[in-house]
């Protein structure tokens, strides 16, 4: 009965789902709560210590940062992060007021790893509305160490993902990308300006694991996709991003930077009309 009612209520949505392929259908089933968290069935446990080292499935493996890095992580955090986020990572700097900077306790290792590994943290300008992607100041191991220490304060999820893209379904990925990502990042993944001072970054040059981290943790303005995208669907999206978005097929010639009609208009007017007018100038009489 419920399904019949919802069929009427969600008519337009079902219209889409019907045409996006069978697996995209599951995009609207919000029954899978908290994708990216461990379940009894998918956990790998270190036999010696009894600690969870990873969890996940054939689509994405989430790796827990090793506890051996906690000491290093604390030292790095105090050097690089504590001036804003505070010595306890709770967002309260020394002599500061709470709430001025994000509280990092309990955000999960993937969040920490994403911000540091994409070069956004440590922030160039802590007062900026949005931190921009730069060359990372800390390397991957240092990021992992900081994530390990912050996570040790209040262990949380998701952990650091490794997508297995070999079996990614590009077609499902394309459909899911168009539905979930293109509204901000554009259908060609170039990114664009959003509201006052915020931007959806370009996806052209981003490693696969960071795409998963962004989808699962929702950095900045981006929504956090957990319940509505399964690990397999995230993997498909990442597969599409790392192939067709980052290396688009341009059989029609020079791709004009993926900018679409604006670049095409300039080429059409300057090279098309411009060149032909010059030919006319050459053929005709100049006075």
């Amino acid at each position, binding site marked *: 009965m419920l399904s019949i009612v919802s069929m009427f209520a969600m008519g337009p949505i079902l219209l889409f789902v019907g045409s996006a392929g069978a697996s995209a259908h599951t995009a609207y089933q919000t029954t899978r709560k908290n994708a990216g968290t461990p379940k009894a069935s998918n956990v790998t446990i270190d036999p010696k210590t009894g600690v969870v080292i990873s969890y996940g499935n054939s689509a994405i493996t989430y790796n827990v940062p090793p506890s051996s890095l906690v000491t290093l992580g604390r030292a790095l955090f105090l050097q690089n992060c504590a001036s804003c986020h505070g010595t306890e990572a709770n967002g309260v700097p020394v002599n500061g007021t709470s709430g001025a900077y994000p509280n990092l306790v309990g955000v999960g290792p993937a969040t920490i790893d994403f911000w540091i590994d994409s070069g956004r943290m440590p922030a160039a300008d802590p007062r900026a509305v949005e931190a921009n992607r730069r060359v990372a100041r800390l390397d991957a191991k240092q990021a992992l160490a900081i994530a390990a220490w912050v996570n040790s304060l209040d262990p949380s999820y998701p952990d650091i993902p490794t997508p297995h893209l070999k079996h990614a379904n590009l077609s499902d990925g394309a459909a899911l990308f168009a539905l979930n990502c293109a509204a901000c990042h554009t259908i060609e993944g170039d990114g664009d300006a959003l509201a006052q001072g915020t931007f959806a970054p370009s996806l052209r040059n981003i490693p696969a694991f960071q795409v998963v981290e962004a989808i699962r943790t929702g950095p900045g303005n981006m929504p956090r996709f957990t319940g509505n995208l399964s690990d397999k669907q995230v993997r498909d999206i990442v597969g599409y991003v790392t192939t067709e978005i980052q290396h688009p097929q341009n059989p029609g010639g020079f791709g004009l930077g993926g900018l*679409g*009609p604006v670049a095409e208009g300039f080429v*059409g007017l300057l090279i098309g009309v411009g060149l032909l007018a010059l030919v006319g100038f050459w053929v005709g009489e100049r006075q």
Partner: protein
Amino acid sequence: MTDVVDTKRAKSQAAGPYGKVGQVLNELDDRLGVAKGGRSFMDKIFPDHWSFMLGEIALYSFVILLVTGVFLTLYYIPSTALVTYHGSYLPLDGQRVTEAYASSVNLSFAVRAGLLMRQMHHWSCDIFVGAMVVHMARVFFTGAFRKPRELNWTIGTTLLILAIGNGFLGYSLPDDLVSGTGIRIAFSILESIPFVGSYLAFFLFGGNYPGATIIPRFYILHVLIVPAIIVGLVGAHLFLLVRQKHTQFPGKGRTENNVVGTPMFPVFMAKTTGFLFIVAGVTALLGAFAQINPIWQFGPYEASRISYAVQPDFYMGFLDGALRIWPSWSFHSFGYTIPLEVFIPSVVLPGLLFNIAYLWPALERKFTNDHAMHNLLDRPSNRPKRTAAGVAVLALMSTLFIASSTDVIANFFRLPLNEVLWGMRFFVILSPFVAYPLAWKICKELQAVQGGGKRKTTNVVTRTAEGEYIATPAPVYVDDVHAELDATPVPDFVVDEPEQAGESGVRTVER
């Protein structure tokens, strides 16, 4: 043996001085009476100025549009029925898409030369509209629209509107994500018209958006109805051009009562045929090497999907820009809502602009009280007010076009989007008010230049052995013959108009 030779000679003598060709033409003339009209057509005089070639770019792009368009119709399926795509583009494999989209992707990937044809069609559309705008600007700034050519100006303006409209229709046909967004905007624009909007929109779309009929309807409009009107109007445009004869720039030997230039046959015909091939060649090069509208990257359109940073083709850009920057005004009362923030920029504004274009010849007649026939063109700087008005409109259109990329500007320069939007509002409103006096002043300054608008003669500077520099006027170059445009003798083959012709093929006929 001698009999055979004599027979041949007898035959060739019977055929007359023009041989077999002449014989065939004689036969034709006996039946159809083509000689008189054909002669006057072959003697049609074309002024040689390069700016007269701009309209030809538009004409020949239209020819290419027709040819490539016919090719595309062989493979395109105008249907919104859903099919499962199984083609060579793997990221779409297994997706449910409309037949229109599937056939567009298939004709790009699976049909030999299909992608080239599609890209040539799209590029020549951009060139077509662009060349029309440039041609219109030439006609406007030189005053070629004045009496007796107002009707041709009206036809030309109509052609521009039809070309823009048909470009939009064609852009919509592949039913990809980007064009679907455009159709959605078109539906909303129709809906925004007070009182009749919803009825109009439902009438055109055969019901509510998106419906299943819009693609076949756009198709028949795009491939038959609008092109048929365009062909008819182009014919009328050219007929009037031949009938009224060309305008020409003032110069030695050129008056209001003659036309100086090269005859249709053989000079202009060779030139213009070559130009057709050059236009086709440039279009083919663009189609082969510059990718346009990669619909496979955009994916199929679904009403629930949207991509950011979607823009229309450049000729719709000014409408998009106006829509973006217009403040959110709307009228709610008496049970009606009139979305002025859509209606004004997308219906009233273009309506106003094109109506001014239609009315301009009449307006100019009224304000200048000039009701004379004009066959000699103006130098734009000699008409500062008209030139400044044209520049102001072009400035408005250009800034509106730039305003259609507020997000791209904000993203590229890392500026806040809202500030870019506000900046654009000032930029657009101020641009015509800055452009008008600036253009007017430049015209006035140009008028003051001695010998302005005339070709400068070259001086050759020589240095003597003593180190003295002497400037002497350079000899006239061979291809400078046209500079003076003296009316010169008619070539031999035109016997019945002996007045004023020349070796260069430049000659004069009475109107």
